[in-house]
């Protein structure tokens, strides 16, 4: 009676064990990579908009300040989107019949608002306050990236909690002088951490022991 398994089976079994282990690690690795990929969290993915608003032109070329349109950013929790009125303040004279601007003109005529698509959407249980951050020297760029290089805005990062906590744990890494909050491509003159430390003091930014509290963002 021959043995149940041939002599080759030994190698087979051992190889399959090794392969199995590799496979598992590979799968786990893939999942981790995938959850950080842009397909998963939409980072850098263009969101279709009724009007292809070119941020790069308005910011980089025309040099409009963020607040010109996002009026609430330093006054309230919401950064706020510009009312049609704001667009019309220029586009009643400039590019008055540019087809791309048709929706704006329609909205102005009909009084129906323009339906922009959201780019950033934090969960309901997260209470982010633009005023508080802008006022403490956290720049637009820090979260929203180089808007001056975008046409229609794209998500600059996944906005995972770990991203927020990273700064709340040590704001000195990121804060800049209030004067430069709306700048794009700002380079600290000198060691960011030294400058940061000083600003944290000057702006009386809360200590990590408090910034890391749950109730700072969740209520």
């Amino acid at each position: 009676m021959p043995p149940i398994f041939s002599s080759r089976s030994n190698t087979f079994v051992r190889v399959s064990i090794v392969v199995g282990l590799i496979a598992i690690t590979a799968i786990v690795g893939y999942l981790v990579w995938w959850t950080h990929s842009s397909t998963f969290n939409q980072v850098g993915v263009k969101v279709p908009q009724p009007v292809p608003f070119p941020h790069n032109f308005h910011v980089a070329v025309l040099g409009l300040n963020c607040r010109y349109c996002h009026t609430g950013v330093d006054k309230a929790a919401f950064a706020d989107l510009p009312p049609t009125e704001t667009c019309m303040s220029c586009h009643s004279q400039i590019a008055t019949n540019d087809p791309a601007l048709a929706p704006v003109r329609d909205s102005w005529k009909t009084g129906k608002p323009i339906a922009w698509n959201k780019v950033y959407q934090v969960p309901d249980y997260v209470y982010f306050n633009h005023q508080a951050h802008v006022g403490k020297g956290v720049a637009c760029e820090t979260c929203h990236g180089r808007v001056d290089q975008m046409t229609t805005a794209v998500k600059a990062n996944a906005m995972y909690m770990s991203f927020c906590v990273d700064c709340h744990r040590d704001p000195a890494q990121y804060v800049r002088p209030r004067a430069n909050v709306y700048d794009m491509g700002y380079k600290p003159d000198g060691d960011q951490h030294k400058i940061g430390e000083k600003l944290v003091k000057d702006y009386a930014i809360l200590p990590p022991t408090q910034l890391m509290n749950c109730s700072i963002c969740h209520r």
Partner: protein
Amino acid sequence: MEILEQTPIIEPGHTSLSVTSAIADVPLTPIRRTPVGWIAGLLLAFAIMMALLYAVGALFIEGIGVWGVNAPVGWAFAIVNFVWWIGIGHAGTLISAILLLLRQDWRTSINRFAEAMTLFAVANAALFPILHLGRPWLFFYLMPYPNSMGLWPQFRSPLVWDVFAITTYALVSLLFWYMGLVPDLATMRDRAKNIWAKRIYALASLGWRGSARHWSHYLSLYLLMAALATPLVISVHSIVGMDFAYGLVPGWHSTIFPPYFVAGAVFSGFAMVLTLLIPLRAAFHWKDFITARHLENMAKVMLSMGLVVAYGYLMEIFNAFYSGDIFERANTLDRFTGFYSPLFWGLIAANVVIPQLLWFKGVRRNVLVLFVISLIVNVGMWLERFVIIVQSLSKDFLPSSWHIYLPTIYDILTYVGTLGLFLTLLFLFLRVLPAISIFEMRELVHETGHHNAVAVENATDGKAQVYPAKPTKKEADTAKGGR
């Protein structure tokens, strides 16, 4: 009604081959000749298990609200069952590990079965911590894993300890059990007729061929794992005890909980082993291997553990009054006279009074009575956990918040369902694996038969040695070239 005589731990006249076939042929029965009783039993168990499926379905769709839990009684059946099952789970590891270390050779005929029982009990127990969550789909928040929130579990919480304790306990018991099975799987491989059965057993037996080298590593590891499992068992139920001792609820906040929970666990565990073995040994004609000695010994362990538990109760009551803490006192009085007092007195009867019968040899050797007592203890220990958890919560500090708990049909179905799951697994186990450790039985046969074996030269010094034998320095050296 049979009254058993004083008997050895294995009936005489057995040989390696006879024990092997007696045990191994049970799972190897051809499918066509599967006993009707087994099929019936499995179907029944399976049917009961469906109740669990239904109840859990409702639970996940509707929410925890389908249970009777409320404020203030946030924990009830789920946690009671959890503690109960975990407790039962303790007998297995205890028998196979502690008794092994204590060289109680009577354990050999029951350890395999007890370990299997442990696994199934733990499987049931492990269900409840997840089921009782308000948002069970987030159970993994209790485990440390790299996450996008940068958060960790709260390691000060006994519930996190539980997660680690139960996982460890389940895995280690599984390994221990499987390790014990390997040589027997080889036997199964060699006895199986069906080629597929052969193949499966062959794979499972990892290529065991009983080589002396195998045995030396194997026995060494088996002993070590026993040494690991022993403190593990104790730690697990201590931690379960701490779930309560850690809280400041009157009736929970007590330092004796860990040891007293461990004792309770062993108590209920042995009760469950008896409850299951007594019918099984009859059904499978194992009376030769599981003799009156086994039953009696287990009865003795039960009795002693029962006394430890009784001491626990006594201390709880004593401390409640001695401490002068009005909340503790009120809680204890409520146990005596309150809404749940019938359950309290019930558990006292079942866990303290009735087990005292085991003082009498007659009782210990009367299989039927023993069976009934073991059943009563199982019930009693369930009641104990219910009273500790529910009664304490229902009347804590502020009278304004007092509220009683009553189970709903879903509470009950969930509990009954787990019994179904347990039995289902048990039946499947009996059908495919040897329920008694064959190689250890062979060894037992050899040892018991040893005195009248032919004296071979030097056979004696072999016998004199404690094994796995340590080679003398010289031998070790000479062996260098040997490999």
